[in-house]
């Protein structure tokens, strides 16, 4: 087992082992870089994953206290659970559904293409699709994305059959989409056995997760030291304003200080800005790397919602891949619909316990019971679309509430933008039409779940004055401090974010290794 000394200041410290951090760790190790990977959660495996929604939720979810504010319904129904993301080795790649879509070209130029939308803090990415394409290709190959690299699509399950027929009837095209789930054995991982517990950790490893791909590959190089159960409290810097290392609580709750040559933060879009804000100092009074004032702001969560429909006959939607089917007919830009941006429709199912929890949080009575009575005859889909960045949607440090380490808990504030509301309404209407076209008895418009896509809180910008990081994810203010997760997102785009996070991490690793070699870092 590789082990580095706490005072070894030649290592790159990466905080978080999910899509961004786990990928970055492996890519750096492959290029000869020494990496200490700090992960707040514990290491599970496909052997310890549990096919049980509540038990797996307890095993994998980031359950440290958080608070919410704003007018979003999550703040009312789940006041201490703004996000449904993970605290475990592999991060949220243990829980994600696997949808792997590239951005559309225009989505990198949201400000230029959508124009100045009142209340929206839109900005163009300092990147183009063309620049990212080679890295997208590497990410798809690494993750084994179906329908790329000659990998066949997944077979559709019962939920897909309903979705497909409804979509076809209303003039959409539906297919099983690009999924980072093996449709055939590949890269020493098995093919999907259709368990239907993708969210609970894949029991066959068919679904890509850094837990059993990137991290062991990095360990094999002998250059990675993964420290699990380590919660970072702050990043430290020297008088010149360069990051010098991190202070963290180890698995025994003991405070430790790890020196570093470079620090990369990939704690997801709530913990990442929280850590920068907690690292405020005399030199950086508003938080580390926050001269723009944008750290924690522009929090995006995608415009989401679900639609479930009941039918005369059985569906058993929970059998097989949790997600896989996709309709992309509304993903393009067409302002005639009354909103900018687009959305995807993706098949989704919940087991009986989570259906009860999420169908209509706080709901009860005959209507609720009737929906549950028809669980077997239910089909479902998820809406995921671009939401507008707003400065006031933000992560802040709570004034009084503290976590188990005595650190201020993050508050997550979110209000829907009128564009988000218009898009969700449109998506609900289209989804309802889709299911009614195949004989739905009753259609349920289900509100957004706690956020699984958390983005934008350290956004990328060409200019230091209106963004936190440059096109490499390097903070404008602290040259050896990088942001390596979805916090970098300048705008949210329509697509599920993991593929782009992995793509950016591959590209960032090349940049960091190059800069280290030339002694620029």
């Amino acid at each position, binding site marked *: 087992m590789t082990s580095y000394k706490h005072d070894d200041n030649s290592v790159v410290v990466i905080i978080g082992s999910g899509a961004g951090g786990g990928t970055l760790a492996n890519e750096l190790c492959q290029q000869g870089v020494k990496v200490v990977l700090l992960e707040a959660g514990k290491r599970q495996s496909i052997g310890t994953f549990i096919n049980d929604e509540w038990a797996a*939720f307890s095993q994998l979810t980031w359950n440290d206290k958080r608070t919410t504010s704003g007018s979003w319904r999550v703040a009312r129904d789940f006041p201490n659970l703004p996000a449904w993301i993970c605290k475990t080795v592999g991060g949220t790649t243990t829980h994600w559904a696997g949808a792997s879509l590239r951005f559309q070209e225009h989505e990198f130029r949201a400000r230029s293409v959508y124009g100045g939308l009142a209340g929206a803090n839109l900005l163009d990415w300092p990147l183009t699709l063309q620049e990212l394409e080679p890295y997208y290709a590497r990410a798809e190959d690494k993750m084994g994305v179906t329908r790329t690299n000659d990998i066949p699509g997944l*077979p559709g399950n019962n939920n897909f059959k309903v979705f497909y027929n409804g979509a076809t009837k209303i003039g959409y095209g539906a297919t099983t989409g690009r999924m980072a789930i093996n449709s055939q054995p590949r890269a020493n991982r098995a093919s999907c056995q259709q368990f239907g517990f993708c969210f609970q950790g894949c029991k066959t490893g068919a679904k890509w997760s850094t837990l059993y791909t990137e991290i062991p590959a990095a360990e094999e190089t002998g250059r990675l030291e993964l420290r699990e159960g380590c919660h970072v409290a702050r990043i430290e810097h020297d008088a010149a304003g360069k990051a010098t290392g991190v202070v963290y609580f180890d698995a025994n709750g003991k405070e430790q200080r790890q020196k570093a040559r470079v620090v990369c933060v990939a704690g997801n879009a709530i913990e990442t800005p929280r850590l920068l804000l907690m690292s405020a100092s005399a030199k950086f009074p508003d938080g580390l790397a926050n001269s723009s004032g944008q750290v924690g702001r522009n929090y995006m969560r995608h415009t989401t919602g679900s639609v479930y429909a009941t039918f005369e006959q059985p569906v058993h939607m929970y059998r097989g891949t949790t997600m896989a089917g996709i309709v992309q007919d509304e993903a393009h830009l067409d302002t005639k619909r009354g909103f900018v941006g687009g959305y995807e429709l993706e098949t989704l199912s919940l087991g*009986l316990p989570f259906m009860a929890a999420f169908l209509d949080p706080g709901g*009860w009575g005959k209507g609720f*019971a009737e929906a549950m009575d028809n*669980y077997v005859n239910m089909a479902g889909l998820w809406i995921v679309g671009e939401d507008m960045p707003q400065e006031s949607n933000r992560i802040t440090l709570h004034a009084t509430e503290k976590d188990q380490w005595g650190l201020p808990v993050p508050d997550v504030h979110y209000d829907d933008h009128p564009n988000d509301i218009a898009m969700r309404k449109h998506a609900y209407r289209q989804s309802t039409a889709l299911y009614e076209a195949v004989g739905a008895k009753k259609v349920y418009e289900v509100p957004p779940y706690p956020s699984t896509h958390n983005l934008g809180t350290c956004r990328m910008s060409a200019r230091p004055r209106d963004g936190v990081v440059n096109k490499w994810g390097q903070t404008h203010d602290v040259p050896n401090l990088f942001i390596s997760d979805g916090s970098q997102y300048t705008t949210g785009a329509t697509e599920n974010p993991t593929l782009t996070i992995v793509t950016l991490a591959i590209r960032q690793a090349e940049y960091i290794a190059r800069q280290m070699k030339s002694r620029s870092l």
Partner: protein
Amino acid sequence: MSEHPVSLGALAQPRVSRRAFLKGSGLLVGTLWASSSVLLALAPSPSWALELKSLDQASATALLQFCRRIFPHDKLDDAVYALVVKELDEAAAKSAETRTLLTEGVAGLNRAAGGNWAAALVEKKDAVTASLAGTPFFRKVQGTAVVALYNNELAFAHFGYEGNAFQHGGGYLMRGFNDLKWLPNPTVQASPAAFGV
């Protein structure tokens, strides 16, 4: 949210302690309905008993009836609702505050029903339940029930959810993930054949 694990067998065997029997209270008992065939197939015995840790029998019965009106599944056996009462009773045993909330809530149910909530007509019960929506007592029972009622193998069997696939025969690849017959199959392009099938 938190996990409230509930397992089959929590109620299935009437194991009444001598102490509880002598006390003559603190026990919720029942027999699975003849119509609950899927549950009868699962349970080791048609009789069930819940030994109460904190609540008395009358309160437990009232709470069970209250759960039945919050989540009114007319065909769902009392035994499954009793799993919610079990959770509430355990919460009451752990917290005096919760115990007070529940016992005062039950007193309120009886008052609103004109004396005896458990014996009131369904219409009356529904009206009382609706009048309490949003109160801390209602929210406590609803919040407990929405997890406990639907997170157990009796409920899975009743509602037709197959639960833990890994324990019960593995993935659905060879056992029905795409067995839906009442709609046409998608094209091969939209839904390619499964590997190895």
